[in-house]
């Protein structure tokens, strides 16, 4: 596919992005939520997080970065276990597909919530 260094560049950059957006996620579940953590899980709070365009965009970006970072990480770990060409091809394909599936599945959820839950 791409050069390994390009894949690692994106791994590092998505990692940094996840740190920032993850901090935002952590904040939105603790001190930015009315009533702290219990209040963050209230239906109204969650609903507002998904319907506000900025929060929803942040969630979507978080999901995109995570999909790449997590499955590239799994790919690296799995590739180190076995070096046969069959295994390598299978791991690369599976992790790519899994990342895509997770991203699309999550995007569907976010869009569903964003549109008020009515599909």
């Amino acid at each position, binding site marked *: 596919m791409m050069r*390994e*260094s390009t894949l690692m560049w994106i791994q590092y950059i998505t990692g940094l992005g996840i740190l920032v957006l993850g901090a935002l996620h952590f904040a939105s579940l603790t001190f930015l939520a009315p009533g702290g953590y219990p209040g963050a899980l209230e239906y109204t709070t969650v609903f507002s997080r998904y319907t506000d365009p900025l929060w929803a965009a942040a969630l979507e970006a978080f999901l995109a970065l995570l999909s790449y970072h997590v499955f590239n990480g799994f790919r690296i770990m799995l590739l180190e276990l076995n070096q046969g060409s069959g295994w390598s091809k299978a791991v690369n394909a599976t992790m790519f597909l899994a990342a895509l599936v997770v991203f699309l599945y999550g995007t569907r959820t976010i869009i569903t919530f964003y549109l008020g839950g009515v599909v």
Partner: protein
Amino acid sequence: MATSEQKPLEFKIPNLEGVEKPIKNVVFRVSRFDPDKDSKPYYKDYEVPVYRFTTVLDGLIYIKYNLDPTLAVRYSCRMGVCGSCAMVVNGRERLACKTNVLSLNSSIVTVRPLNNLPLIRDIVTDLRPFLEKHRKVMPYIIRDDIEAHQDREFLQSPAELDEYMMLTDCIKCGLCYSACPTTATDELFLGPQALAQAYRYTVDTRDAGAKQRFEVVDSPHGVWRCHFAGACSAACPKGVDPAFAIQQLKKLILYRRGAMEKRKPAPESDKVREGISVEEVVKNIPKEWPSPPAPK
């Protein structure tokens, strides 16, 4: 004073313990494996008398000479410069000739072959995968005009030398390769030694082969399978610090790839380098060698 009255020189060696007679007997638990007879390695115990300065290698030679001549062990210089006696002693990668048995503070000394390399016999491993990976990174100066002018040295400043001098101390013992967590599962991984040497030649200003070497190390089993566990540097008996070199190599690939690939190598000493005149180079040559570090 008459010369016949001179007293003989008297001096006392402070501590003769363990110098003339062995201090104790230590059990050497050595991994044995005969490829024609055994299906997998097993441990065999030998009792070895240990003096104050006995090294693990001395113990193994004692076993071979006195107890069990069938023991296969690889060694050469017995002073820590050849790298032949690399093995795993009490769980840690060490050179056997540089490991004092009493310093291990254990009555049982477990000797195992190097990890992650094919085992030939007993504690002798096949170093060919290790050396072939070294060859793959082209560990020599690559430049277009290497054949043309063979009669002059290349211009390289002491600062440029210091960039890679540390890495030239590598004795190819294989301890770093054995300690690396990635080689434990990934047999295509180039290994810390090869990658450190790739950096040593890439950053050498006399070299112009960055493009070829980057292609080799920027691969699915190249420099990016290093995760900076630092076990290689912790194991290295000469302080080469391959972990340092590999992180710097990653930096070159991420940030300086274009510049390194286009870099013109150091010219010969009678040629002018771009931007620097010969007079300026001559002016900056230090009058004296830098003084050696003060003894501690």
